[in-house]
């Protein structure tokens, strides 16, 4: 965190569509050069918040400013200072990589003498050397996303909004994309990036957890991991999972239970007393189960607890 004015400020930011409130009195401050991860289930209001901050939607209430400009009153000034990648891939598929970059360089009024150099940089950054003249629709997902990022940063914006930039991209390409994000942040670019991949949350300076339009929690990954779940967390493998989950939820010791991959995570008041009883109950029901083991809560455990419904998996 630096002492400079925050790059992004939202105060009581609200967006209603008819009777549906997509974003509900959201407060957010993002410091210059910070990478903030936006996490939440589908439909939680991540995209709507990002669109509000880009000036694409008009707030129903509250206010927000980006790079010092008010999103409702100075949307054009905001647009000149941001880069945006929408959730849906949005470059021109019938144009080549170079043509897309040239187009956005023109639209963003990149100085003509620098255009060639910046396009060169974007192509190298996206790993598209030698494929400059390929039609964009023929590229694989990872390349497309890196090219979209390249287009969004041609004008060197101080603030970047990336809406699920890695969805549908293979893991190695995702990793590479995050390296690019960190390089940009190191240069002082402020980045708000939404994702539903839990592992990606770990790459952020801070995580903003959003659910039903509300900001549920915000903090660094380690701060959030220390969040008090209100009990001990046990992990056990058992089969069949569905039947075990239903059975475990009936037990008096259990506060909460949910499926994590091929295991169950069970929240109890006291692991020492609950673990043997849990195992005994499952055996009684003829469900095979490994001995419950106390674990440190992961970020996902915290999110599940906070959101109190399962996170959607990509």
């Amino acid at each position: 965190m630096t002492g400079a004015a925050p790059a992004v400020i939202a105060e009581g930011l609200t967006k209603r569509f008819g009777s549906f409130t997509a974003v509900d009195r959201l407060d957010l401050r993002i410091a210059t050069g910070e990478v903030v991860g936006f996490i939440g289930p589908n439909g939680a209001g991540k995209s709507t918040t990002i669109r509000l901050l880009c000036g694409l939607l008009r707030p129903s209430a509250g206010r927000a400013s980006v790079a010092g400009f008010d999103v409702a009153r100075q949307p054009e000034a905001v647009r000149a200072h941001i880069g945006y990648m929408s959730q849906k891939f949005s470059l021109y598929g019938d144009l080549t990589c170079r043509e897309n970059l040239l187009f956005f360089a023109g639209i963003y009024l990149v100085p003509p003498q620098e255009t060639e150099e910046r396009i060169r940089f974007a192509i190298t950054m996206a790993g598209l050397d030698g494929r400059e003249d390929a039609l964009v629709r023929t590229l694989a997902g990872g390349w497309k996303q890196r090219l979209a990022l390249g287009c969004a940063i041609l004008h060197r914006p101080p603030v970047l909004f990336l809406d699920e930039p890695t969805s549908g991209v293979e893991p190695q390409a995702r990793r590479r994309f995050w390296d690019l994000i960190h390089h940009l942040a190191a240069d002082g670019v402020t980045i708000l990036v939404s994702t539903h991949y839990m592992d990606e949350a770990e790459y952020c300076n801070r995580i903003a957890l959003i659910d039903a339009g509300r900001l549920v929690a915000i903090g660094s990954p380690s701060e959030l991991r220390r969040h008090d779940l209100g009990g001990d967390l046990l992990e056990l493998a058992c089969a069949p999972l569905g039947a075990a989950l239903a059975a475990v939820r009936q037990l008096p010791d259990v506060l909460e239970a949910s499926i994590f991959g091929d295991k169950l995570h069970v929240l109890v008041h006291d692991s020492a007393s609950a673990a043997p009883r849990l195992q005994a109950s499952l055996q009684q029901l003829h469900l095979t189960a490994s001995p419950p083991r106390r674990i440190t809560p992961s970020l996902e455990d915290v999110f599940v607890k906070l959101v109190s419904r399962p996170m959607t998996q990509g």
Partner: protein
Amino acid sequence: MSIRRLLAMAYKESLQIWRDPRSLAIALLLPLIQMVLLGYGVSLDIKRVPLCIDDQEHSQFSRALVERFVASGWFSVVHDLDTDRSIRDAMDHGTCIGVVTIPVDFSRVLATTGSAGVQTVFDATDVNTTNIALGYAQGVIAQTTADFAAQWAGRHGVRRATIGTVDYEPRVWFNEGLESRNFIIPGVIAVILALIGAQLTSLTISREWERGTMEQLISTPVTALEVMLGKLIPYFFVGLFDAAFCLVAAISWFDVPFRGDMATLLAATALFTLVVLGIGYVISVWIRSQLGASQVALLLTMVPVTMLSGYTFAIEQMPAPIQALSLLVYARYYVTILRAVFLKGSGISDLMLPILALVLYAAAIVLIAAHAFRKRLD
């Protein structure tokens, strides 16, 4: 407004037109197809209308009448009507659409009274053709009869004046051959341009919405005016190219006489192209699906432009409210200008009113188009 952004927009749009088979087909193939269909298909002329002659007299006169019918070029005479086959049969079978009956005593009645009757019966299911054919048939018969009467009078020493014939010498101006093609083809150019122009631009904004590129575009500092102009410029040149193609086809292929000056025509064509492209663009802004926008563009151009522009149906003959409505149809003014420039050789000074109407229309549509597009998602 930034010229650089405008050029970036126009260049991008040009590339997309060039790479989109559908846009190319509309821009290049449609004018060709329409020109052939409308140029050849729509004709108000009658040629070689099948006609039966029920010649009961077999005289010098009846033979002369048949010859005159054939020589006119408007009719093809079908001889196979025998007396016992009814007129009704011939018409039912479509052998002919008209029958001219020369009575047995025609020459005798003409000789004794100085006038005689020839009966004509026409199938009026196709009113237009029949009306025109009937007119021509009357002309042929009247002329032949008059000539015969004059010959008869000469032979019998009766001075022609006593019969009281009036010499009628018709002259028509501007389309001397009364070729309906000369009248229709200039209108066809207007119809084609209106259709193609609106079709082309009706897709331009909706395509960006459908493909998701619009969200990216409106997140940039590009202005609504730059988007509009950047998108319309390439289509404007496509429109002018199509107009040039239609004009060349009209003059060199369909042999429509061109008597006016190119400058007037180009000015009017540029204005008209701007109007139709603007209409398509506004539709595209308002309707976010390509299919919907294209359908609405078709409906909004096809019906008024073919019905109310005066390109085939004379506006002067319509009821007053419809005539008033046609004043709103931009194509009406262009059709008027095209015809006047082509056939009358009119220049800008003669066409002030329709040109002014097009200028007003273009200004209005550009104004609406410039304000129609909002850089917002809600």
